[in-house]
């Protein structure tokens, strides 16, 4: 059965800001645990978080490791969408550059997800 509620989290910070990189995953995991459908959208430097192996380096003080949270979000069914031009401009567009489950999309898909959710949060 589809979730009755939906949230979109736009992630724009990468490993250089561990706290802002981590918090959207905390919120996404909590939302999924609360039976809320979740879409995570990665843009700008946020795309580095779904670059294979890069999340393993992110640890914000007093938060779980990002890699652990990312695994939780994937296990709980979160959708991860990645900005196409953002990965191209960072040289991350090779087939094996991104983690499993990350889907490369363009602006139209982001707009479709955001407009279908009652609320979206930008980090």
């Amino acid at each position, binding site marked *: 059965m589809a979730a009755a509620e939906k949230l979109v989290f736009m992630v724009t910070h990468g490993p250089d800001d561990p706290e802002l990189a981590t918090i959207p995953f*905390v919120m996404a*995991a*909590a939302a999924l*645990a*609360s*039976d809320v459908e979740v879409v995570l959208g990665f843009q700008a430097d946020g795309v580095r978080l779904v670059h294979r192996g890069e999340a393993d380096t992110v640890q914000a003080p*007093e*938060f*779980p490791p990002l890699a652990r*949270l990312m695994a*939780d979000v994937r296990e*709980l069914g979160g959708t991860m969408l990645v900005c196409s031009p953002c990965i191209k401009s960072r040289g991350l567009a090779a087939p094996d550059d991104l983690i499993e489950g990350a889907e490369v999309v363009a602006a139209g898909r982001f707009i479709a997800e955001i407009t279908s959710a009652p609320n979206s949060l930008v980090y």
Partner: protein
Amino acid sequence: MTAITSESELETITADHVIDARGAACPGPLLEAKKAMGGVPLGSVLEIWSTDPVTKTDIGAWSAKVGHEFLGYLAADGYDRVFVVRRK
């Protein structure tokens, strides 16, 4: 979140499943509770141990959101014992 069971009543409860989430940072205890709920029958009592002082309010809010019954919590030696009944 208002607990609906008194401390003296909570003291008498033997949980069906205990989750030791001591030392886990937010949202660890919540995710552990979510995962455990899927493995116990309806009506089962989960007891979550947490050293994070906000877990008790977090679990209370989560229970109300998803339809479980938050019974309350007991302060233990350096951690909280949080009680929830699976209702869905």
